[in-house]
């Protein structure tokens, strides 16, 4: 395959130690898995180790590093790593270092095999399509096993930060309920406390100074629609509203209380100590690719400043990079000319990465009918590039309140199973019909009736215009955490690129696809 980086070899002992603990259970039942332990290290809740400064893991594209800035962290007694709730999970269960602090579907499938479905990630509460289904049956966990999706159950109608019910601009019906949860008497929309279940990917918990910055675009009013910005309940300050697919939590603290209560089934309140442990780790951990097959190291001392977790730790947070003075992902000059030490393959791959970056920044296409992009002064359509939406320096997120409708969850663009007389294939995702109420302006692109698999931000705001808008994730550790998009609808980077090609009729050439793919994999 490829050489391990010198730094990674040095850290090997820490890896083996961590993995050894984690794999004790599985090694007894399925010995062939143990042999792979060096490749994909699973961190089980309650793991007892010291998180080293640098951890390196392989993935199909090369290697990823997790860099923990500052003093080493002991996982014993640490609220991010301990199974503090009732179901045996810890935060780390779904935010795995080897998966770039997210959770790949490959890891999920491997855990299913190794533990015969007993790993706490499969807890019925949200690790199953619906808690009502028979446990231990793969079919009950199909969305998690096939697409890496956890169930997110949200109250309907939504409530404002003071707990007051919001009067939504639309009504919502369940058109299709393959998981059974949205029509369930206890969990569904018609229960005493109506709730809606949507299915989403874990998001990477790393590089959080970028996702929680207080810089460009943070204002008392949301730059996309003029509504008040969610504020930090402790300080009263406006936030960047870039956490979660729907920005429902303004800060890491508010988020972790909910994560503990829902994902971990933790009863009671996290203590101040537990909260500061979690936030301290979240704020110190960085994740990014560090090497790429054939291209070699991405993090040589004079290498491109976009790459690797140390550069992320050094980078300026919350500034625009959609410009030629700073760049979203700055490449610098290091790779512009061949070095004597480079092999021809290495040179070719590095040039492909540079071309991919150019496509991301400069390859124009017509961006059309995308809510909160075409509606913010650019016109519809607008001739722009990937970096128009993905403009934040170092992460490729939107600088603030980054929810937009790309069509990943709204029809007609969302991934759907064809319906016809010649197939038995059934849709896996729920489908909702949203009807904008009379007297409310219709959605500018989708009209009054919208079909969606996940209303996204609209489940929080109650706004018609927010239906299917999703907060973009950072472009980091992509190679370690497939599938992509909040609903896991793109199985690979290639499928993600194909989605854009269809959505905006970009007409990428094969070469452009390859270049863009390798560029995204190197982040």
């Amino acid at each position: 395959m490829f050489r391990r980086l010198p730094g990674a070899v040095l850290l090997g002992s820490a890896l083996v130690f961590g993995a050894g603990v984690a794999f004790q259970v599985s090694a007894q039942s399925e010995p062939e898995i143990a042999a792979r332990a060096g490749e994909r290290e699973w961190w089980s809740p309650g793991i007892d180790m010291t998180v080293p400064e640098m951890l390196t893991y392989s993935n199909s594209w090369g290697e990823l590093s997790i860099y923990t800035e500052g003093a080493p962290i002991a996982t014993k007694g640490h609220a991010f790593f301990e199974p503090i709730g009732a179901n045996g999970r810890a935060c780390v269960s779904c935010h795995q270092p080897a998966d770039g602090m997210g959770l790949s579907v490959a890891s999920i499938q491997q855990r299913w095999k190794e533990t015969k479905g007993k790993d706490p990630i499969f807890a019925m509460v949200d690790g199953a399509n619906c808690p009502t289904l028979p446990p231990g049956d793969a079919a009950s966990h199909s969305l998690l096993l096939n697409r890496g999706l956890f169930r997110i159950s949200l109250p309907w109608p939504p409530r404002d930060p003071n707990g007051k019910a919001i009067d939504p601009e639309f009504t919502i019906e369940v058109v299709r309920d393959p998981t059974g949860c949205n029509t369930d008497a206890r969990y569904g929309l018609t229960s005493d406390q109506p709730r809606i279940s949507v299915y989403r990917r874990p998001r990477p918990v790393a590089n959080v100074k970028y996702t929680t910055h207080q810089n460009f675009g943070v204002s008392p009013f949301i730059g996309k629609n003029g509504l008040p910005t969610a504020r930090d309940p402790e300080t009263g300050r406006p936030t960047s509203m870039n956490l979660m697919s729907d920005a429902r939590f303004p800060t890491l603290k508010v988020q972790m209380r909910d994560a503990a209560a829902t994902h971990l089934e933790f009863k009671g309140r996290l203590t101040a100590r537990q909260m500061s442990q979690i936030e301290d780790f979240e704020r110190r951990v960085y994740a990014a690719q560090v090497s790429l097959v054939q291209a070699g190291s991405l993090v040589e001392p004079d290498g491109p400043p976009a790459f690797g977790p140390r550069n992320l730790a050094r980078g300026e947070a919350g500034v625009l990079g959609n410009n030629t003075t700073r760049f979203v992902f700055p490449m610098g000059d290091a790779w512009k000319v061949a070095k004597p030490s480079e092999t021809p393959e290495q040179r070719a791959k590095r040039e492909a990465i540079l071309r991919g970056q150019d496509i991301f920044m400069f390859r124009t296409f017509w961006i059309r009918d995308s809510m909160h992009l075409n509606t913010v002064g650019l016109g519809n359509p607008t001739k722009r590039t990937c970096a128009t939406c993905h403009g934040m320096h170092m992460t490729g997120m939107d600088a603030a309140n980054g929810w937009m409708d790309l069509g990943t969850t709204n029809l007609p663009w969302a991934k759907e199973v064809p319906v016809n007389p010649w197939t038995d294939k059934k849709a896996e995702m729920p489908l909702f019909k949203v009807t904008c109420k009379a007297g409310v302006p219709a959605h500018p692109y989708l009209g009054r009736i919208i079909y969606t698999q996940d209303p996204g931000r609209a489940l929080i705001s109650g706004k018609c215009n927010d239906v299917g808008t999703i907060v973009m994730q950072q472009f980091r550790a992509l190679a370690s955490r497939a599938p992509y998009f909040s609903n896991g609808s793109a199985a690979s980077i290639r499928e993600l690129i194909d989605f854009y090609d269809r959505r905006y009729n970009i007409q990428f050439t094969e070469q452009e696809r390859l270049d863009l793919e390798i560029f995204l994999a190197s982040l």
Partner: protein
Amino acid sequence: MERAVVLRGLLLASLALHSAASAAEDHLAFVSCPIVRDTKTVPCWLAEHEGETYYLGIQTDVSAPFSPPSLGHKVLVEGEKTDEPRICGGIPLRNVIVSVMPERADYCQTLLMAEDRYTLPFESPRPPGPSRGRLAFSFPEPEKVMPPYKSRSFQLRYDFDGTVGFRHPRSLVAVMEYASQINARSIVIKGYRGRTILSNGEALTEREGLAELRAKEAANLLQGAGLTSPEYVVTWDDEPQTGDASQRRIEISVDP
């Protein structure tokens, strides 16, 4: 307007000659499908009215005073005809205000390809991709307020039939900043709705109840953003105000 910035030199002479009477004659207000024409750089936006093509403006970025309209919707165009050289094949309009009509108009889909004969006669303030390190337009920093504090009024303008949108944060922030600097005792908001007389004589009136909706919405926005200490006096006049785009507005007075 980007056009105004670039063409200022050219326009000055002709501007001086314009009498009030001819300005009224040159005033245009019409609703039609917008047309987008690609160019070698950024797209330009046009609209047709009575067999003539008018140039509205170009794509720049969020900072621009001119925001291009939307295919799939008609556009209300208000402005004054000029005798300046055509841009992108259209007659330039002065003081142009475009307003995306809320209803879908699926047949408004004209996207014209770039042709060598249609080039922008000026450099676009923003290329069709990354900027050159700054937004296309910049705004002056609000000046520090010194006592004795006075009442100050602010105006928020709206798209036809529109409520709050992406262009309002700037004004709303200005209201909030002034209110907190002077420790405002009261915020008086008055809402209006507009009526535009189109060039064909028809009257286009904003929906009923909008004056109230706009006024109440603004109060909710300011309070929601944390400006809760002043007392709010919210009124509205739902009688349609006949005139230009400036009638689609609310007035906010911030009082010490």
